[in-house]
């Protein structure tokens, strides 16, 4: 029973990791930018969601309608006014690194700003379903984690449809595949970039909303999850939507199941070794190909 509980928990946690990785992989797939500020945006969403719940009594799941637009705008503006100038300046550089450094710096700035405004306390929204569990013949399934998992599936499905079925989605994929040709076809590439970055950031926000009922927010909470998200993006294949979900589930399962046979310290090491092995033997990841988009 313990093993089954561990497997279920691994799948549920894996979904959350996958949802965070989804935003990261989108930004990478389309803009070819490694976004180090992704974890900071997750943290911002968690802390906002907490305070909305604390002060105004808004259930974290309902705060979606406030936080998703806010984070989308935040992402949109970040790309438009911070990243775009750097990209433009580095247009003719073969291996541009400015955007990566910029997002890394941005993440430090956001963290310290939040630290200054909201303090370093550990915050968690203790909702009615926080800590609730479903018990099925000796198995215990955490309710908020289950909700988060369902949300991940829905978000991934909708996002996939959006990329494949809508005009904007197609424009995004085209931009991801070949920026130059997309420009010639009349796609407004800078705008597509801004929207992509906005959506990616909004997905980090969505992850934050689903985490806050059972995990603590504090200014450096992003670091707890972001490393995993990066590993997942590589495992799943850079820029692959189903890869993000599959990679997330894989990491979640490995963490949860392996921990039943070794200490948690060792499972962390195991995950990193798996990551290295993938980089060595299958650098494009599970689903990755350069023309996924």
């Amino acid at each position, binding site marked *: 029973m*313990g093993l089954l*509980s*561990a497997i279920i*928990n*691994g799948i549920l*946690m894996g979904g959350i*990791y996958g949802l965070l990785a989804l935003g990261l992989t989108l930004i990478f797939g389309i803009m070819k930018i490694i976004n180090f500020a992704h974890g900071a945006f997750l943290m911002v969403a968690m802390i906002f969601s907490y305070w909305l719940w604390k002060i105004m009594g808004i259930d974290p799941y309902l705060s979606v309608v406030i936080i998703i637009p806010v984070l989308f705008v935040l992402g949109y503006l970040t790309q438009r006014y911070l990243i775009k100038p750097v990209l433009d300046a580095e247009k003719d550089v073969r291996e541009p690194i400015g955007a990566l450094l910029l997002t890394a710096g941005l993440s430090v700035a956001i963290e310290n700003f939040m630290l200054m405004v909201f303090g370093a*306390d*550990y*915050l*968690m929204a*203790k909702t009615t379903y*926080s*800590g*609730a*569990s479903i*018990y099925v013949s000796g198995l*215990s399934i*955490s309710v908020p984690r289950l909700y988060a998992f369902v949300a991940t599936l829905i978000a991934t499905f909708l996002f996939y449809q959006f990329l494949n079925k809508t005009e904007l989605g197609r424009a995004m994929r085209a931009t991801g595949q070949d920026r130059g040709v997309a420009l010639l076809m009349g796609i407004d590439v800078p705008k597509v970039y801004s929207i992509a970055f906005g959506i990616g950031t909004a997905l980090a926000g969505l992850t934050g909303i689903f985490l806050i009922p*059972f*995990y*603590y927010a*504090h200014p450096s909470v992003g*670091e*707890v*999850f972001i490393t*995993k998200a990066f590993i997942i993006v590589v495992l799943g294949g850079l820029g692959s939507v189903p890869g993000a979900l599959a990679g997330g589930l894989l990491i979640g399962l490995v*963490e*949860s*199941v392996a*921990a*039943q046979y070794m*200490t*948690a*310290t060792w*499972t*962390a090491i195991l995950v990193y070794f798996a990551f290295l092995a993938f980089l060595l033997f299958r650098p494009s990841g599970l689903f990755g190909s350069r023309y996924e988009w």
Partner: protein
Amino acid sequence: MFAKHKSKLYLLFATLLVVMLVAGCVGRDTSTGQVKEVKIGNILPLSGAAAPLGKIGKEAREMAVEEINAAGGIKSLGGAKIKMIFADSKGDPATGVAEAERLITQEKVALITGTYQSGVALPATEVAERYKVPFFCPVPSEDVITERGFKYVFRLAEKTSWRNRDQVKFIQDMANKYGTPVKTVALIYEDTAWGQGAARGWEKYLGEAGLQIVLKEPYPRNSSDLTPVVLKVKQKKPDIILLCSYVSDAALLTNTFAEHKVKPVAFIGTSGGFADPVYFDTAGDNCEYFFDISTWEPDVNRPFSKEVNEKFKQKYGYGMNAEAVKAYVSMYVIKDALERAGSLDPEAIRKALAETHLTSGVTQMYASEIAFDETGQMVNAPLVISQFRKVNGKMERVTVWPEKDARPGWKPEWPFPGWEGR
């Protein structure tokens, strides 16, 4: 050009040497005649991450010194007043060493107290030992501080391993008293130096007590999910779960235990995260009936405890913690030693400290008897176990063990009643 510089360098070195020698040799004012004040150096983390703890330690010391001076200072020194000189260690060992050096050579203090961190205490006490100046440690608990054969180091606090010892004592005591046989124990601890030290202590004392460790589970702090650890513990069904965690992990573990309805005979924490006020906010009702170990609680049943804490609250706006109590009591132990030494000679002060035997007065709030063994370690550092209980609907730390220190009218809830009806 170069030669000129060289000669300048030599001159500089020579000057330095002379200064150092003079500073080292010039006797302190050791005559007992005209003593106006006794300078005491204090090394505390007044900035940096531990600054809040340094601040409360400073406030407790100042309150004690005010009281002592108002009551006529050190009578055997003709009513000399105590003068406190504070130095900021920033929580950094190197800074602590430099400040110890400065306090002894420049400020010519009679003795030094402090530091909050064991990491700073270790090198700073070495400096004092070299200069043969007494160094009084109220708080740092790393075992080795009083295990290096030093003659000038005294410690009021307990050793870290004593906490583990008393946790095991408590388990046996409860098992006998309540007729709940206890055989198996699970250890869950954060995987850095602090947690590993606790694990070593537990192994030693549990082994001596004949209890079986069925699970040793170190985990990285700041884990994204501790469910795997909790599920593993649940499989093993241990009688006792011993925990050593920082505040975020402590709350995450507590909530995850609740989620999976893990039900041992008892959960026992090792201060740290479990003693952090934030823990009650984040774990909420889930932490009810958990135990935690410490050296002092606001409700502890000891003379002067309530009065002093109340006075402190009036003065500074918040209550004392165990660190503040140790800092406060330390000043009275030092005062008693100075009184008996009747001189500012460090040797005399060292001897007086070693002969300390306090069984009355305000120091009762910390321990009924204060005495040091030949290593300078306080002999019976008092440890108490509190249980998180609801008092008028609010979670509080209620002292329950040992019985003589327990909050009047309260008994431990043993075994753990389970999670139903919360």
